[in-house]
């Protein structure tokens, strides 16, 4: 039988709210009790149809448990239709298992009700340390309007340091000045000492400026930088090639 086919409901249609049921057995029990059906003699055809009609509104996912039950009911319905051999004492009612399950479930329901009542009574007596849940936040300590809040947020965001990838520091290097000075010296002297060039009490940037200028001029072939002994003084000599130009 196709589940998608419209279901023919035997008697009046049964309108049931499915979320009100905790499962297929609950629904089944409801159908049986509502119509005051003898649980020992369930009209399985009618109940199966009503069951199918009731679960028709369900989506497939939530219906899985119900569909299983529906298939089970239809299996019983089919078994009931099979001819029963005459005088067969061994015949077992195909509904027997269903009845057993229903009664078992009903018993569990009764216990569940008892558990619920008992828990309800117990919840009227409080033990120490059962603090109320912080359902409500304490009132805000300050009153401020949205504009103020936004302005403050903006100010704070602006003040936030951005992620520093590279910090640029101004370097007051003066390689041009150093180059000029070296050329002046070279113009008058063929050879001089690095310390002479730096003069007395040079700053770090002076030293760096001079070194860069020296290296640059050496590259250009205007001078030769030499050191005769390790850690000795550095000599700067006018390049011969330069004179050739």
């Amino acid at each position, binding site marked *: 039988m196709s589940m998608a086919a419209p279901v023919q409901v035997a008697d009046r249609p049964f309108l049931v709210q499915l979320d009100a049921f905790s499962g297929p057995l609950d629904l089944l029990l409801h159908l049986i009790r509502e119509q005051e059906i003898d649980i020992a003699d369930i009209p399985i055809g009618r109940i199966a149809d009503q069951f199918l009609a009731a679960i028709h509104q369900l989506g497939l996912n939530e219906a899985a*448990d119900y569909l299983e039950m529906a298939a089970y009911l239809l299996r019983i319905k089919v078994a009931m239709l099979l001819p029963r051999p005459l005088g067969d004492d061994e015949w077992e009612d195909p509904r027997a298992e269903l009845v057993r399950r229903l009664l078992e479930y009903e*018993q569990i329901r009764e216990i569940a009700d008892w558990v*619920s009542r008992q828990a309800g009574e117990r919840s009227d*007596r409080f033990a120490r340390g059962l603090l109320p849940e912080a359902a409500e936040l304490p009132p805000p300590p300050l009153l401020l309007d949205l504009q103020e809040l936004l302005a403050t947020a903006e100010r704070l965001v602006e003040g936030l340091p951005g992620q520093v990838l590279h910090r640029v520091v101004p370097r007051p290097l003066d390689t041009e000045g150093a180059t000029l000075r070296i050329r002046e010296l070279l113009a008058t002297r063929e050879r001089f000492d690095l310390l002479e060039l730096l003069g007395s009490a040079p700053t770090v940037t002076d030293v760096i400026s001079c070194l860069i200028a020296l290296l640059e001029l050496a590259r250009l072939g205007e001078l030769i930088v030499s050191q005769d002994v390790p850690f000795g003084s550095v000599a700067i000599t006018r390049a011969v090639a330069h004179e050739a130009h």
Partner: protein
Amino acid sequence: MRSLTKLIEAALFAAARPVTIDELAGLDPEAGEHDVRAALDELRLAYDAGGHGIEVVELADGFQILTRRECAEAIAEARLVHRPRKLSAAALETLAIIAYRQPVGRADIEQIRGVQADGVLRMLQERGLIDVVGRGEGIGRPLLYGTTAAFLELLGLKDLSELPRLEELSVALKPPGEVR
């Protein structure tokens, strides 16, 4: 009031859970179970006779000081306490099955309720009402569940023997042992 009674009152007040007789006996090296019970009776009588808002209650294999039922409405109304959230029908049915069939596996619970039980079992375990108590035989050695002390506390029971006997139910079926 005897000194042991005073100590027990202090211990029950300080502990946020039911305290067992053994634990209470630890308050005084010379106190035996009999002395502890006598002291508990004295405390209970003192609270009852004095018209106190609290009482000594035996539950979950121990004793606890609880507020009296008639005070519940007022203190709940004043939001000084909150009642625990009610359990869903699915949770109650599952608890009922576990309470009577424990240790019981998920498959049996699903068979009885006709509904998948994963979600409910997880929720009950998170609330501490049930716990895994072992593993069954068969494929995959399924987890078996049982109720906890928190379950007894939830219902205000001394122990599981206070659950209604199956013969007392209107729908009497087979005793748990005989049902598959």
